[in-house]
């Protein structure tokens, strides 16, 4: 449907405006996107012939990412700079290769736009060295590429009216009227969790779902956290998000299949930035500005090369430690449909 074509841009615009608005109150945090981090790494040495050594020698790392997702990666229309959590993670990984500080490596990273459908092939043909683009780790993809991480857990959640006390858990949606976007993966996600709303209302945009909620035509809206956070802001807190995960998607860094040394290196690097607090700073500077509380970083999954292990990152993130939920703006599966219709 045609409306889908303008839905994404308009949603993003909304989120950009809202993101700017709600970011005002925490302008002081530790690491800004332009990087106030002072952590300096010495120039590391790598075994000759390794991907890291080649990148270091080349003096440039090519990173695939998305340019249109607020929170994870979006091109700031004012500055032309990319901003977002995926971008910050890519910079921190690059510091591990080139040494120095986040600001110093910025010149050594070339970001290439990799929309959902082209990520595997971009890695396979060597167009990019690695991909940080809300890339959900799953077994089907592991047949084609390898993943370091996960470095964050993404997910969908539930929005209700602030004074709602009847819906507390996902199962409370059974027999309730629920609104979501037509063409989103939410219906499938709910079915997978065996949730049967009395009516599943499908609207063409999420502000329309917010209308439905305000007019009490539905009792809950289910979608990606980033989208719902924007609606909560817009409603002047007439709505709230619940601490519920409808779907959980571990996001990883994609790299060439079989390059175990590079994968181990990125996994080590991720653990190092978990440890140093740089991961948390990056989170605060990006998703934090959308109102997400910083969760515990997920444990990296060093799956065997056969690529068949299933990720159970949830076990390492106790739900109790995440106050408003520990995940990111968009589930990759939803992005698929959006990217396909907006291309």
């Amino acid at each position, binding site marked *: 449907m045609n409306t889908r074509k303008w839905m994404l841009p308009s949603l993003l615009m909304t989120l950009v405006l809202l993101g700017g608005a709600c970011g005002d109150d925490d302008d002081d945090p530790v690491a800004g996107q332009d990087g106030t981090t002072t952590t300096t790494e010495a120039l590391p040495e790598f075994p000759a012939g390794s991907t890291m050594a080649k990148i270091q020698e080349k003096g440039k790392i090519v990173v695939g990412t998305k340019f249109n997702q607020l929170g994870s990666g979006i091109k700031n229309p004012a500055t032309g700079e990319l901003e977002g959590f995926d971008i910050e993670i890519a910079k921190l990984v690059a510091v591990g290769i080139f040494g120095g500080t986040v600001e110093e490596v910025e010149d050594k990273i070339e970001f290439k736009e990799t929309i959902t459908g082209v990520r595997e092939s971009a890695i396979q043909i060597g167009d990019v060295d690695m991909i940080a683009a809300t890339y959900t780790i799953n077994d089907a993809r592991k047949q084609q590429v390898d993943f370091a991480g996960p470095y964050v857990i993404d997910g969908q959640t539930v929005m209700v009216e602030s004074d709602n006390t009847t819906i507390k858990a996902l199962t409370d949606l059974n027999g309730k009227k629920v609104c979501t976007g037509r063409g989103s993966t939410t219906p499938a996600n709910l079915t997978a969790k065996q949730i049967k709303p009395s009516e599943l*209302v499908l609207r063409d945009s999420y502000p329309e779902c917010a209308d439905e909620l305000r007019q009490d035509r539905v009792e809950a809206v289910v979608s990606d956290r980033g989208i719902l956070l924007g609606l909560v802001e817009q409603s002047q807190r007439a709505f709230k998000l619940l601490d519920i995960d409808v779907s959980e998607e571990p996001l990883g860094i994609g790299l060439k299949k079989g390059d175990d040394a590079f994968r181990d290196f990125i996994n080590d690097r991720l653990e190092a930035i978990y440890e140093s607090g740089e991961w948390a700073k990056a989170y605060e500077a990006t998703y934090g500005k959308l109102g997400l509380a910083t969760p515990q970083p997920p444990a990296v999954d060093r799956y065997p090369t056969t690529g068949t292990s299933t990720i159970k990152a949830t076990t390492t993130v106790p739900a109790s430690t995440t106050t408003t939920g520990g995940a990111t703006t968009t589930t990759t599966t939803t992005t698929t449909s959006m990217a396909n219709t907006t291309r």
Partner: protein
Amino acid sequence: MEVVLDNRDLFLAGMLTTVSLTLVSYAAAFVIGTVVAAFRVSPVPPLRAAGAVFVGAVRNTPLAVLMVLFFSGLGDAGILFTRYTSAVIVLSAYTGSFVAETIRSGINTVARGQGEAARSLGLTFPQVLRIVVLPQAFRTVVGPLGSIFVALIRNSALAALISVPELAGNAEQLLTDTAQPIPIFLGTAIAYMMLTLPSAWVVNLLEHRLAVKR
């Protein structure tokens, strides 16, 4: 086409909603259209103006806009019609404006002298319309009224905008769930044709039976 056959219940349910939306809305549109057409040819200026304003406003606004405006706008004002009722009201009003203009054109084909003759026999204006003019007017516009009916079947797809589970909306969600666009679009097109082609055929038949032979 397997994905269509596997989900034939969804398609059938969608078709059923589409048919019911169409029939109910068309019946209402027919009444609205006749009344508005009568207004537009009446000798009372305020009625003529009201008819013209209704047709002008409704017929010149995109149906999608009317649909969402009526549903969400009235909802904001605290008037909550159900999705189905909202869709029927909007589809009837929109289609009614087209029916009105069609009937008015039919009325214009009836010779002026007939109305004048009827008035001189002592019939009131409503009687002239009901007994003399409208029966002839309808017969000349059976074809165009049929086209409006077929158009309504397709227009009813816009009820999906307010989440009425009709054919097109059901198909679109199925598309996301299965990611098989070609069979689903083909299946949807065929389902619509299963409704529109027989309708067109019936309209043709009626036209031959009822049309004024000249």
